[in-house]
């Protein structure tokens, strides 16, 4: 009895999840964006000091892109946290779909950072004074894997 009650309780908490499928996905994507930007800043800028704050070869468009994504990353983190709270409030949270969104958002940002920002806009490189090719490959392949996991999860939960 206890178990079936718990099950019902649990179901009740997510009773509206099909109704908020899109919102779960976007909340995840925004959060994924923010998470990757945070990891990038905390690990590669602050702890390892691999990334540079500013690289003399940066194109002006690189400064604009960096500024936009920098502001957007904490905007997305905070905004998606409140959207998540809102989904719970509406009994519309869907863990699997939300996770799918996170993987997709994280991968997309990682790929954008790795290809457009590092390579085309020359914002900064992953690391300096080393052979950069293996770093770039690992970085972008990892991004692709994240995107694939995200897409699979989103397809599985597509109603």
């Amino acid at each position, binding site marked *: 009895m206890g178990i079936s009650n718990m099950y019902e309780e649990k179901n009740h908490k997510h009773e509206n999840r099909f109704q908020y499928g899109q919102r779960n996905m976007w909340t995840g994507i925004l959060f994924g964006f923010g998470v990757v930007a945070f990891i990038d800043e905390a690990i590669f800028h602050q702890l390892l000091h691999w990334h540079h*704050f*500013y690289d*003399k070869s*940066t194109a002006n468009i690189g*400064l*604009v892109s*960096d*500024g*936009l994504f*920098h*502001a*957007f990353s*904490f*905007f997305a983190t*905070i*905004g998606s*946290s*409140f959207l998540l*709270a*809102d989904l719970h*409030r*509406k009994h519309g949270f869907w863990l699997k779909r939300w996770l799918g969104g996170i993987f997709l958002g994280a991968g997309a940002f990682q790929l954008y950072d790795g290809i457009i920002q590092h390579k085309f806009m020359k914002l900064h490189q992953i690391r300096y004074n080393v052979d950069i090719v293996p770093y770039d490959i690992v970085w972008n392949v990892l991004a692709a894997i994240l995107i694939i996991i995200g897409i699979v999860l989103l397809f599985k939960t597509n109603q």
Partner: protein
Amino acid sequence: MHSHEAHTQNFYFIVQLILVFPFIISFISYFVGVVLSNQHKKQWPYFRTLFWILGHVCAMLSLIGPLAELAHINFSAHMVGHLLLGMLAPLLIALSAPITLFLRAIPVKMARFISCILRNSYFRFVSNPIIASILNVGGLWLLYTTPLFNMMHENSVLYILIHFHIFLAGYLFTISFIYIDPTPHQLSFVFRSIVLLVALTAHSILSKYIYAYPPSQVSAEQAEQGAMIMYYGGDLIEIALVFILFYQWFKRTRNTVFAKAIT
């Protein structure tokens, strides 16, 4: 020579006093307002008074005393002052709801008259997030990318005007996005979010621009330090601003949840 230095010192002190004077007046007025308001209405919240005190401490730290002196020769100190005067003090003062207190403290008839004035088209115009952002971040771009920065340190009148502008524009900017006091012309959360995102982007870009292209007479090393203070220090205050904006959205949309639950 000595007397000349003393003369300059005195002169700096007078400039600082002129800047601090309005803050001292407003600091005291708030407490008068709290006493008047408490006579007829329920207790004015203590945390609002605390925000008021902290906001004024931040503003005054940047305008008078050791930090203000150092800011003349050290760009990092100047940037810390900028964060305190243009971002943190306005946020704290906005959170202390001074206009609400003012309207509560004065007689009802007068309060009606004042709120009529606050509703006019001029205030509507300048408190539009786009205009407020241009006044605030646009002003900073003007200051750091033109000779204005140098002229400010040579001309006292300019120095005073720019510092008042930095505070007022910062305050206007804050209250155009988060509504603590009564706000007659409210705009949608989506609109405010997008404008805020653009404004914060412009702030981040300016930080890195200063890093790359130091203002004249600022050494590269000092510009780099100052730029990073602006970039990361600005983040902290911007995060608080964004958090409050979304929190207000979360609270405001609560009713729609209950409305749905009933139907």
